[in-house]
């Protein structure tokens, strides 16, 4: 793909998410779509993190733990320390990144299914920790979290106070999509810089990587902490929207879904997790009409998709001779 066609693609995407979608929603009056699309944007950020751990050759089924941790960090800071939400957003990410360094140092030595099993347990550990710790207020959770406050620099309002807005749903949608765009731009940059090449070298052969002088342990932890940072901010933003968080806000099923999003979209494509999330989320909703057969049809479709397109939906582009 040439530079110009990439540029056109990105511009078209930005115009459609920031202008066309809000316009279409206003025209059709389907305001509930805002909540759905906001969720997709945030879930795709968490999935992007999982995708990055796939990129270093690790199956990560523990992103829910970081989403939960990030959500609680933001909730606690906003309700108990009176922080502005927009400040807690990066703090939640950093907290999760730091936490993942501590957790990752020992567990990233594991490979394959062993790593996957440990991460699977992480989500459950996070839930139990949230139930037990005093600061998270147990099963009651933290509720009535105020809407995000104003951000201004030198008297210039960058982000208005959400409580004063006539349409906070639109504002949340715009902020979530903006966050998603930033995260995927960063991910794109990582993958296409030397950092990404080194991650790929890890994925393909860790021994050879070490023998060409790559500090594999360090690189694994870096990638994992970036992944967890994404999980943390996605979780924090979710909490701001729902204005509440419980130990069950992110569960093992969510962790599994983050992973499925990556599989479905395509592990070889940066924008795989975004597409995967959109399709899985809408696919589930569309099947709502089938009632009690919803899960059966949904799972069968997933299995079929993975059989037919093992490299994800975006691999269809490659078949036609295009690229990424």
């Amino acid at each position, binding site marked *: 793909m040439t530079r110009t066609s990439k540029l056109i693609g990105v511009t078209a995407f930005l115009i459609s998410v920031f202008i066309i979608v809000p316009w279409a929603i206003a025209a059709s009056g389907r305001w509930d779509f805002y909540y759905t699309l906001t969720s997709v944007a945030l879930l795709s950020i968490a999935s992007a993190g999982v995708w990055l751990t796939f990129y270093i050759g690790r199956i990560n089924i523990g992103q829910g733990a970081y989403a939960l941790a990030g959500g609680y960090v933001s909730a606690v800071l906003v309700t108990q320390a009176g922080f502005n939400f927009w400040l807690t957003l990066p703090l939640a990410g950093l907290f999760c990144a730091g936490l993942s360094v501590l957790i990752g140092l020992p567990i990233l030595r594991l490979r394959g299914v062993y790593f996957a099993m440990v991460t699977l347990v992480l989500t459950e550990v996070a839930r139990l920790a949230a139930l037990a710790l005093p600061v998270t207020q147990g099963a009651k959770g933290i509720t009535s979290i105020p809407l995000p406050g104003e951000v201004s620099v030198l008297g210039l309002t960058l982000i208005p106070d959400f409580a004063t807005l006539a349409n906070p749903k639109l504002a949340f949608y715009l902020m979530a999509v903006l966050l998603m765009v930033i995260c995927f731009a960063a991910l794109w940059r990582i993958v296409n*810089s*030397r*950092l990404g090449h080194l991650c790929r070298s890890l994925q393909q*052969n860790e021994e050879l990587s070490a023998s060409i002088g790559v500090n594999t342990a360090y690189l694994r932890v870096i990638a994992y902490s970036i992944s967890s940072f994404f999980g943390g901010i996605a979780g924090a933003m979710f909490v701001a929207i729902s204005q509440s968080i419980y130990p069950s806000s992110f569960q093992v099923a969510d962790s599994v879904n983050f992973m499925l999003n990556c599989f479905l979209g395509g592990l070889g494509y940066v924008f795989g997790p975004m597409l995967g999330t959109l399709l899985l989320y809408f696919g589930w909703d569309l099947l709502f009409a089938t009632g009690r057969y919803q899960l059966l049809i949904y799972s069968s479709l997933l299995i079929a998709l993975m059989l037919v397109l093992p490299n994800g939906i975006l691999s269809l582009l490659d078949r036609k001779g295009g690229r990424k």
Partner: protein
Amino acid sequence: MTPILEIKCVTKRFGGLVANSNISFDVAEGEILSVIGPNGAGKSTLFKLIASFLRTTSGEVRFRGQVISNLAPHKVARMGVVRTFQETTIFRSMTVRENIIVAHHLRSKASLLGFFLGTRQARADEAAFGGSADDIIAFLGLEAIAGELASNLPQGHLRALSMAIGLATDPKVLLLDEPFAGMNHDETMRMVGLVRRLRDERGVTVLLVEHDMPAVMKISDRIVVINFGQMIAEGTPAEIQSNEKVIEAYLGSEDAAIGM
């Protein structure tokens, strides 16, 4: 002149099995030295110990006087002792050129963050890696397959690629693990020529483990023979060919096996 590599009383035990027992020899700078021995003699273990992919049970390996045994493998590589692999280990889903470019990691001056941000240093590094990769491709005569995915390459080319990856790290000492395995006579002779040029044109000291005796006899300045984890002989190809112990170790196999 002090040796570039000193292997001093190196011993490696796996539980009750002694894979290497008290092995000592020196490698001079610019030398091509082969380690030979029957299957299971402990040659590959010795290589892993030198490149520090395994920890020694006792003894030490020194590179230019500095102890390198039991350091992290990437640190040893960083000092200039680089190992290539027995089973044509490469990055399978990258092209030949990408493989070589990635292997330039050690030479990068910019940090990972620098590469992320695309700083001037990072861009200079990328350009330098590309140039150097093309040099290596030309050196090894891989121009025709530079854009090919590594997983599509035949054996002989894989071996050359694995050497190219080693070269990209700008090694002082290159450890080649069975570089001639599975090659026919012509391919072997080409590879022998390449290894020679590696030493003559790039000044790389080469250590190799190999079974192909005619090639070993042709290429080596000196040979170290290992049997049952013990070093049983050390000397020039001519000395090794007439060494009683070596002949005994290879007894049962054809005489041709040690190139006689």
